[in-house]
């Protein structure tokens, strides 16, 4: 069993009709329940729920406070390489894009790690392009060895791997993985990912489950909102998260809510415009459907917006972000990122902002379990 047949049912379902047929009564019923079904989740994502956003916000806010308190965990990405063999039409790392490509060696990694660690951050997310030959599992393992000297928690956002490969990385000290399905729409997916290993929809779809099976502590999933109708992808993402949470209760399941951003290279027109209201509705519905699910908001979002949504369900935020390879130590003119970020505030500035809003920035929320010597 995998999530694939469940997802296939949703892909085959007349979702536009289902969203359109939700009534005010359905939304109220969902809001009054303590344990929500997938149908309730669909109701909260529907156009009929838009007039209920304030009620949804009150419930989501209360649930978030109850389960997570007034805390926000901070992390930052480290781009180790931008070689890529994919042709994803919306991505700056697309192999067709003529951008400077590079990969950090051990010394550069050490320097980059030191620069990030100096900001106080303890949770690191490492990224590579999808190029196994360049960023092999062995390369990532050796990088993790270096990084773990500086960070108690190292997560990966890299190409889809086998269960055995995930197990090896866990052994090396990786404790979290992020895998964006980009879009769950199986028909649309190959158009957006015309070539490269990422073309394999199902191998990617099942990657989070393989990581769960391998023993990953935290598994973070998401769709790149805007590639397909946001409601469709939001629904399938939530159902996917619920599937993983139910089947692997020992794993912390989290969801990221990234909206598509501009990037270097060919212009790409997103299929669906994801407004601020839409993103908020998505977050509120997700929080009410899965009260204990982590929700990550990245620096793709603008500073004001990030601050305003703080009480609505967010549990993790990136800060001090650079999407360039070696971006924390390289010169400004060398920088070519995967996408443009909106919130360029430093870690210190983010902490100040969080405290101003009554939230504690949490730098460390995990301790590696090696035996004491």
């Amino acid at each position, binding site marked *: 069993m995998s999530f694939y047949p469940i997802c296939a049912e949703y892909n085959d379902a007349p979702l536009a009709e289902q969203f359109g047929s939700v009534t005010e009564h359905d939304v109220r019923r969902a809001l009054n329940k303590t344990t929500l079904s997938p149908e309730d989740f669909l109701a909260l994502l529907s156009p009929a729920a838009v007039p209920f956003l304030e009620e949804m916000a009150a419930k989501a806010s209360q649930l978030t406070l109850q389960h997570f308190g007034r805390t926000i965990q901070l992390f930052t990405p480290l781009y180790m390489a931008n070689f890529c063999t994919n042709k994803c039409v919306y991505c700056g790392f697309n192999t067709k894009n003529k951008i400077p490509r590079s990969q950090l060696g051990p010394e550069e990694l050490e320097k980059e790690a030191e620069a990030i660690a100096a900001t*106080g951050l303890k949770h690191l997310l490492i990224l590579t392009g999808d190029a196994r030959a360049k960023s092999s599992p062995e390369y990532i393992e050796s990088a993790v060895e270096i990084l773990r000297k500086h960070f108690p928690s190292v997560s990966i956002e890299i190409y889809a791997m086998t269960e055995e490969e995930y197990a090896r990385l866990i052994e090396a000290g990786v404790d979290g993985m992020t895998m964006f399905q980009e879009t769950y729409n199986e028909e649309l997916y190959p158009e957006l990912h015309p070539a490269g290993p990422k073309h394999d929809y199902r191998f990617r779809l099942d990657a989070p489950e393989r990581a769960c099976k391998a023993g990953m502590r935290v598994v973070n999933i998401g769709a790149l909102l805007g590639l397909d109708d946001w409601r469709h992808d939001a629904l399938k993402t939530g159902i996917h998260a619920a599937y993983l*949470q139910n089947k692997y209760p020992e794993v912390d399941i989290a969801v990221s809510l990234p909206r598509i951003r501009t990037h270097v290279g060919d212009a790409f027109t997103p299929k669906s415009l994801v407004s601020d209201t839409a993103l908020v509705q998505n977050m509120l519905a997700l929080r009410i459907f899965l009260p204990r699910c982590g929700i990550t908001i990245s620096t793709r979002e603008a500073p004001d917006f990030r601050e305003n949504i703080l009480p609505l369900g967010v549990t993790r935020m990136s800060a001090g972000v650079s999407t360039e390879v070696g971006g924390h130590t390289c010169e400004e003119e060398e920088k070519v990122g995967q996408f443009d970020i909106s919130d360029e505030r430093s870690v210190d500035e983010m902490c100040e902002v969080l405290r101003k809003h009554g939230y504690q920035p949490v730098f*460390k929320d995990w*301790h590696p379990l090696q035996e004491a010597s």
Partner: protein
Amino acid sequence: MNNDIFKLGGLEFESRLLTGTGKYADDSVIPDVCEASGSQIITVALRRVDLESDTGNVMDFIPKHMQLLPNTSGARTAEEAVRIARLAKAMGCGNWIKIEVISDNKYLLPDGYETAKATEILAKEGFVVLPYVNADLYIARSLVDAGAAAVMPLGAPIGTNRGLKTREMVRILIDEIELPIIVDAGIGRPSEACEAMEMGADACLVNTAIATASDPALMGRAFGRAVKAGREAYLSGPGAKHSHAKASSPLTGFLHEG
């Protein structure tokens, strides 16, 4: 009443309220909560402790007089809990440990079997082991055998503020288990802590209800007083409750006439 000392792990405490360090908007409020509540024992998740940090280390905010109770939050198995306990000791957090083994992140209910295994290993190593468990007589008995210093049954699932939902089961533990019974998790209102103490619980641990209150120090004070009031009520021996009205002229009174 002045001699009502709470004995735990070979130490003596005046307060029967244990507090926590999680979920605060700002750790700097912790000293105020400790002072206002009178609590003398405080639990801290080892996974949040960062001794390398120059600033923002939760340990910096825990008053020196508090008995530190590191917890194994994040452990999914007995083995992980044991590792965390040993790490906590190696880091200088002392030999008290609150065992939390949770492998269901949806409901955060404790795994009694794994908890008992970890308790046995750590008690043999000389830890003062305080296991967080479901309110279950069999688990509690196994914890007694494993060498626990107390049993910490939940009142309701962690962080729910739903109150003493396990009332009847906790009552059985109070009646049957020789170890101190510390009601942990789920208590959302001071009145609920008071009720647990009235029933005869030895102490209560409260975190979420205090940390997420608008005024944590004031809520801490309220809990401190409620726990004390409940304890005093218990010690005073409240009159028995009756399910039926007691007739002022009993129906069998005639038997004693003449």
